[in-house]
């Protein structure tokens, strides 16, 4: 299953401030709504995006978010990629544990975001930055548009 993600349709947004986080949330919401995600799924995706964008800002020292609509046959989805060139994550498994935090937060960012979307993948090396990729597919039950089959 290789969903078509055309880089030409990717939208890149900078992440360097509080205001950028708000803009990323806004844009992700817009994409998700246009793709036919229902309200609950939209809320989950935007929340996951907010967690990861904040990680990019706080832990990665800033970076960018890439939003790409996906198509796989009749299915619509959204891919979000968060890229930073910060210190990287030393122990990904530990970072994915509920309650683990280095940033004074609740430690729910990564582990919580994973529960809110269909796929979450992390590529990181200490000193080499971090790339987190999220994918969510419109679930038929919550689709806004009636599926034409």
């Amino acid at each position, binding site marked *: 299953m290789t969903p078509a993600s055309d880089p030409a349709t990717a939208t890149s947004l900078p992440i360097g*401030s*509080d*205001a950028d*986080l*708000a803009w990323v*949330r*806004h844009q992700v*919401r817009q994409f998700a709504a246009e793709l036919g995600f229902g*309200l*609950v799924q*939209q*809320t*989950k995706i*935007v*929340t996951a995006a*907010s*967690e990861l964008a*904040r990680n990019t800002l706080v832990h990665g020292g800033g970076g960018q978010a890439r939003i790409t609509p996906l198509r796989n046959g009749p299915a619509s989805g959204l891919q979000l990629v968060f890229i930073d060139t910060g210190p990287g994550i030393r122990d990904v498994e530990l970072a994915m544990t*509920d309650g683990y935090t280095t940033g004074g*937060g*609740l430690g*729910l*960012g990564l*582990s*919580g*975001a994973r*529960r*809110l979307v269909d796929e979450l993948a992390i590529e990181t090396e200490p000193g080499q930055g971090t790339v987190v990729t999220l994918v969510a597919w419109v679930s038929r039950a919550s689709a806004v548009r009636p599926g034409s089959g």
Partner: protein
Amino acid sequence: MTAPLPVPGTPAVPVLALGNILLVTLQGDLHDGMAEQLQQDITERIAHSAADGLVIDVSGVDIVDSFLGRVIAEIAASARLMAARTVLCGMRPAVAITLVELGLTLPGLETVLDAARALELFAQAPSGAGPDRSEGGT
């Protein structure tokens, strides 16, 4: 003296006083800096007024992530240390579902469905006594 400046162009969240109750209505997308500023504003308002109740209305909020959730929990905790009771109201269904899945259930935070019910609650139980009012039993 050196309060952190809010992000330029983002208005602070208004805190309304209704008798002994402070009403805070969160709207739209709250920037992180604004949320932290709000925590400071509210605790100062409680300290300088006789407020013993705090209502946080989140009916206008699209998403609550772990950061905003933590700020709300910390506002409630600091209000409690200053003898004010906090009630959260108006959470949207999609936000509630998302928060549970995120793992942020905000235990210990009192909730009601809407602002009217929050004010009723305070009308029934004045003086910030909280749900436990057994000591005054006649």
